[in-house]
């Protein structure tokens, strides 16, 4: 059991702005919460490759193909930074991956939506990666050192992801009537799921207060969401895209944009597994993991034999 003295000392370190490192004492619950949060984040990066990978063979030009390949490779890298960070908390990579493939570990519900047209790839870069940047910029200041450092690395790469998406969407929104329609349709479909990425309202988010107290997060879900909406409204306007929310209006008093009600029923049903692509995503990950087993085995065996040869 954690003693009160330990908990107080720990809180003092957090309040002083100190970073917690893997070998430092930490409350069991802090460790658990971090494993949950960091592994969810890692799984999300890995699953995030699937909706975009869907379009690699069908991109409109070689340039865009190179960009998309580089972006998807980055997502794999982000997943690996985060798995590596999570492992410092005393769990193995295998446990993490299997808890996700065979267990109950979650990942961001945004990746349970399909990418129906190429415009979706543009919008994912602009909105989904844009939202991720807002969240990850905050997490780069997280109290857990390895998590903060992983997010810092991610943020440096994420701005390329957002910019390439925004640039493509701007082009499309400025194109033929059909292209414009396609761009607007994709924004209409992704807008609300993107706002849900920040999680439930503060009043319905039981973990938030604790995570903020421990400095894992420094802003609440609603604060982050508001920040995202404020900057996205301008970006949409600049490229002639309409955000699908008739209630969106500037509030002189608060200096922020007010927006309509988020369809939370949809959010919870996707989180619980009933999104359009939940089954498909988990199936793809399972196949990759299980059918990759012989590669892991063969490489390990090859390494063992080479070691023996060297020794003899």
């Amino acid at each position, binding site marked *: 059991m954690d003693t009160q003295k330990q908990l107080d000392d720990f809180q003092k370190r957090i309040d002083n702005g100190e970073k917690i*490192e893997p*070998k*430092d*004492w930490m409350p069991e619950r802090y460790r658990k919460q971090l494993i949950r949060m960091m592994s969810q984040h890692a799984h999300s990066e890995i699953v995030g490759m699937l909706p975009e990978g869907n379009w690699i063979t069908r991109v409109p030009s070689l340039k865009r193909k190179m960009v998309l390949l580089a972006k998807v*490779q*980055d997502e794999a*890298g982000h997943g*690996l*930074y985060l798995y*590596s*960070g999570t*492992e410092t908390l005393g769990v*193995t*990579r*295998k*446990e993490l991956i*299997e*808890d996700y493939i*065979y*267990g109950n570990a979650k990942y961001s519900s945004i990746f349970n939506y399909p990418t129906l047209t190429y415009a979706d790839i543009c919008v994912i870069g602009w909105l989904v990666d844009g939202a991720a940047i807002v969240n990850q910029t905050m997490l780069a200041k997280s109290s857990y050192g*390895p998590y903060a*450092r*992983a997010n810092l690395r991610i943020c440096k*790469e994420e701005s390329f992801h957002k910019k390439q998406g925004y640039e493509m969407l701007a082009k499309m929104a400025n194109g033929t009537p059909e292209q414009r329609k396609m761009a607007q349709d994709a924004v209409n479909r992704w807008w609300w799921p993107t706002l849900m990425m920040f999680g439930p309202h503060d009043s319905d988010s039981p973990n938030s207060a604790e995570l903020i107290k421990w400095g894992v997060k420094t802003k609440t879900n609603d604060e982050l969401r508001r920040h995202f909406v404020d900057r996205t409204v301008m970006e949409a306007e600049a490229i002639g895209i309409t955000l699908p929310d008739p209630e969106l209006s500037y509030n002189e008093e608060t200096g922020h944009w007010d927006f309509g009600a988020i369809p939370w029923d949809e959010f919870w049903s996707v989180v619980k597994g009933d999104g359009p692509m939940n089954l498909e995503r988990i199936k793809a990950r399972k196949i990759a*993991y*299980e059918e990759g*087993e012989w590669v*892991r*085995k063969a*490489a*390990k065996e*090859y*390494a063992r034999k*080479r*070691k023996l040869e060297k020794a003899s």
Partner: protein
Amino acid sequence: MTESSTNTTEWPLWEVFYQPSDGKPFEHAGSVHAPDAEMALLNARDTYARRNEGIAIWVVPSDQITASSPEDRGAFFDPANDKAYRHPQFYSVPRAVKKRK
């Protein structure tokens, strides 16, 4: 965990250090899994140096690292605390010399 977890293979863990640019000291980047040192280097490059973040990489088996423990931080680094004479500020010099910077 399910049955399949007992059958799966996990490669050993390696800590990755990289040199950001010429003349700079090596920095810890994170870790990778790999079956051997050669693959660890390649995985480290693909994971931590996709944008020329480093010009050289070291990989070290994670279980080969010995680290000081945070609980002993006070006592462990104590010998450094009472030796103010190791710092240049400990010494006084004539005023005239001080001015010249």
